[in-house]
């Protein structure tokens, strides 16, 4: 497994600054768009269609800075009412939302509404509940969304399954996630930092297998837990 302490891409620089006696580490994240570096561990603010749910964008600066500068975006939110063509025309997330000094991390699922539907996912794509109903998202479609939105960080498409699935289903989820990892990387736009998704349920072996494959692709890491 890679033990590199820093990662560089055109939009993001990350370095670990300190370790605890165990595995915890404190780091610093530099994003081109953010004026000040962000300390990690860091919490992403949840958003709906890119804007925080609980505060209007002009009042965002009143929150602690830079701790409130990382926003989670679910590309699936935009399927309701805003085409990718239009988003591209506007110029991507920063232009569309008027938030130029904030970093966006795109992950398909959110914690409330766009949840993965493991039973409906198949070899072609990942299934999610969305405001437009249940949708099957293929890697190519997902990458089209990422290319239009242009977030600083984005996660590859994963086959997320709950902890109680069969071993066979669990193994399949790892196989698919690795396959989609490669498809997403192949289609990745310039400028964003790729986070490879790690699945594997509660099987340590499967988690390790997935992590090793992701590490081989030399990308950052996004770990899914149930």
């Amino acid at each position, binding site marked *: 497994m890679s033990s590199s302490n820093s990662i560089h891409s055109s939009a993001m620089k990350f370095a670990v600054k300190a370790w605890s006696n165990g595995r915890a580490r404190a780091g610093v994240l530099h994003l081109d768009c953010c004026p000040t570096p962000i300390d990690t561990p860091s919490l992403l603010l949840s958003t*709906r269609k890119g804007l925080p749910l609980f505060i209007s964008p*002009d*009042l965002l600066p009143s929150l602690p800075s830079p701790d409130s500068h990382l926003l989670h975006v679910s590309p699936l939110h935009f399927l309701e*009412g805003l*085409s990718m063509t239009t988003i591209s025309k*506007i110029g991507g997330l920063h232009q569309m939302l*008027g938030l130029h000094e904030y970093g966006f991390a795109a992950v398909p699922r959110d914690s409330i509404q766009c949840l993965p539907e493991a039973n409906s996912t198949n070899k072609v794509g990942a299934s999610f509940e969305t405001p437009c109903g249940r949708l099957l998202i293929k890697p190519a479609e997902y990458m089209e969304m990422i290319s239009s939105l242009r977030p600083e960080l984005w996660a590859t498409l994963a086959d997320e399954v709950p902890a109680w699935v069969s071993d066979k289903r669990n193994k399949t989820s790892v196989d698919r996630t690795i396959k989609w990892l490669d498809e997403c990387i192949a289609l990745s736009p310039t400028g964003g930092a790729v986070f490879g998704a790690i699945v594997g349920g509660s099987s340590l072996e499967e988690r390790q297998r997935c992590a090793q494959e992701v590490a081989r692709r030399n990308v950052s890491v996004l770990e899914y837990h149930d």
Partner: protein
Amino acid sequence: MALRFEVLGRFNRARAAHLTLPHFVCETPLFMPVGTQGTIKGLTTNQLEEIGCQIILGNTYHLALRPTSELIDELGGLHKFMNWPRAMLTDSGGFQMVSLLHLADITEKGVTFQSPVDGKPMLLTPEESIQIQNRIGADIIMALDDVVRTIITGPRIEEAMYRTLRWIDRCIAAHKRPHEQNLFGIVQGGLDPVLRDICVRGLVDRNLPGYAIGGLAGGEDKDSFWRVVAQCTAALPEDKPRYVMGVGYPLDIVVCSALGADMYDCVYPTRTARFGTALVPEGLLKLKNRAMSDDTRPIDPACACMVCKNYTRAYIHSLVTKDAMGSQLLSYHNLYYMMQLSRNLHSSIVQGRFPEFVCNFLQKMVCISLSLSSCH
């Protein structure tokens, strides 16, 4: 009397003035957003200050129910409670009681109604209304009037007008803070010029700090509406503010200002925002419309508000009626629009270019017919 009203400029009957209130010096003509329950839906008090809001309205009926005027008083008044440093106006509670509640009954004593909280019979008297407003602590408080919709005809209108005059004396007697709060009288009388005239004279005799023109913005045809406003502004004293209650549409505000009114209030800008409609110089822009889904222009290219500077119609379209942020952003824009309209009215009169402003305003307004329908 706790106000000063100084006229700075005129054009015919229109006037621009400084209205000095205990909490703020306001420029008229002005529009007052309605903050029903101690808040303007969708905006913080910081944002209200930023867009140039001068006075906001609180609804006595809603506040007396929750959290009660006694609690507000205990906590230092509504200004402190909602952290609004500028001016405030409370209405008497009468209109809500009649418009919101079934089985509300008006007698000489006051308005009897069923409490929506527990169904108990309750009575709002002129004395009680003023006491509640004294506790809430707004800069301007409204007399309890006997409100009748203009679509009603017959002896009820005359009865209501005379009762309003009897009640104003009871309001004046009950008012415990005349040096901190200004009690405005309300002119009633329906669409009848004789009744309106009697009411105006009666109120002017009481030498109140300001006067409101009530009972309008309720479904009457526009010609009748403007006629009543014109009659009242002609008869009310020059040196005191005139407030047309429940108005409203930008066009109505421009016309009433030309006729000599100074202050307005309405839920329309914020309410229509929650339905996805933006106020623009051309009239209305319905963001829900399919055509908006790929329109990358701002709501109003000429508007300097945060929403128009940052967001496209397409993005707002994706939010409206589905996400609360859509309502918030549209409310912000619509109120900014109303504040800008107030500023434009004031400055164009002061700078001697009021007729040019009005002509320009009317020329741009393509959707005049839409603006003429009733305000609820």
